[in-house]
């Protein structure tokens, strides 16, 4: 449930929440149960962020245009 929500998150949102989690944990004034839940969420967020960062793949394509100048498809672009 919470993990599904995290999976939908942008890197930025996940990172911001991770920051929040870390701050809360470092402040140390959360209840023990909550701190564990927080930590688990933080770990999930971190994993999500890492996945986002690792999934960084380059894929470059140029749009091919038809006679009207409208996009017709893509072609690999070798920009050298």
């Amino acid at each position, binding site marked *: 449930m919470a993990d599904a929500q995290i999976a939908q998150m*942008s890197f930025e949102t996940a990172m911001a929440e991770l920051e929040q989690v870390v701050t809360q944990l470092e402040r140390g004034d959360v209840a023990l149960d909550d701190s564990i839940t927080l930590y688990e969420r933080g770990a999930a967020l971190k994993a999500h962020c890492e996945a986002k960062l690792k999934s960084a793949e380059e894929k470059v394509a*140029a749009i091919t245009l038809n006679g009207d100048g409208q996009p017709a498809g893509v072609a690999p672009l070798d920009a050298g």
Partner: protein
Amino acid sequence: MSDLIDDPRLGENAPEFTVSEISGAVKRTLEAEFGRIRVKGEVGRVVQARSGHMYFDVKDERNALACTTWKGQVSKLSVLPQEGMEVVVSGKMTSFGGQSKYNLNVDDVAVAGVGALMAMLEKRKTALAAEGLFDPARKQALPFLPDVIGVVTSPTGAVIRDILHRLRDRFPRKVLVWPVAVQGANCAAEVARAITGFNAMTPGGALPRPDLLIVARGGGSIEDLWGFNEEIVARAAAASEIPLISAVGHETDTTLIDFVSDMRAPTPSAAAELAVPVRLDLLAETRAKGARAAQGLANIMARRKQRLADVSRALPRPDSLTQTAQQRLDHWEGRLPLALRSLVQKQQLRLTTSAGQIKPSALGRIVVQEARQLQALGQRLPAGLDRAALSARQMLRVCASRLRPAPLAERVARLRKDLDDLETRLEQTFERQLQRRREQLVACDRLRETLGYRETLRRGYAVVRSGQALITNVAKAEAAKSLEIEFADGRFTVGQSAAARPVGRAKPTPPEQGQLF
């Protein structure tokens, strides 16, 4: 030029032309002779017809050239002619036979001269700024980490290469390149269409819709960059819902698109830097945060553990908590049966006492007591009576002893003596009184005898009566039936003698009666 026009007029015996023939000949001559030409001048009146065709004049100080741009050609113009604009128009000379006019069919308009270009640019800027297109509030925030980056630029050349290299270094992303002409007449229209085209893509469609656009071009002259000063480009960039970075020319070059873009990058490489963060930095940061989270949790745990240990130490042994209570419990527990027994005994005692008191014997004792009391009282009763009687008798005796005849006799004797005295005094008094009365009577009778009519009678007077009534005058005497005359020695009746006797018989009576008085 004038030679060509003058030519047909040279021949005197030239064949006649129809109007259409000459019109066609002029048209053919014009088109063949001039072909495609460029004319420089100032734009005069501009008319955009409803049909979409555009009519305008290009003029200098003395002459004007009618220009026509057909509907299909208007959209391809890089610069739309505006009145007062110094331009170089390109096209073919032709004529319009219907009105005997010649004109230039313009398929390209270029602004003539840098000064004129800048003046036009300022005018545009002012107009667009007045519309609010440069308003900072319109600027959209760039996504922190775009998934797909759309690049509008030439597919060849250093610009796209720089961008891709820089992206690869920082954070490899999916890149869609929309190839456009970055200079020349088609530049503005193609760039505008590319921006609009990227925006028209649906997210998650066949072509992934970019979440960031970069419009880029390398450095060049102002004329080279002019396409990015065109209004259609500026309007397309302003209308873009996808955040847009403009990177046109070098840092010192500023084009109109830079004012409406959400972010201006000085160079294409800088645009790539603005587009994505550095992946390794992020990775390090993420890991650092993960480590901080773990450390934070560990600290929390350690602190809690420490606290638990501290508190545990402070926690007294459980049995010590209960010892006092246990002791009290023991104490009271020991006393409980005794207390119960004692209570029972006490109550039993009370019960026994009470029960003993209500035995028949107790009642009997009461009865006996009462009887004894009664008896005692009974016994005392005759004695009391006797005593009372005795006392009464004594009193009686005392009284009786005091009741002696002597005083009574004395009193009788005294009374008798008193009586005798009184009797003596009475007799004496009576005798005296009687004597005195007798004397008084004699005196009175003497007086009476002296004073009475009978003495008078003795002296010779008589009393005449008729019956009992005294007759004192003749009248009465005449009226009377009989008269009685009294004398000192008796009465004498005149007339009826019979009547004299009773009167005579009454003779002794008055002395008797008088005696009584």
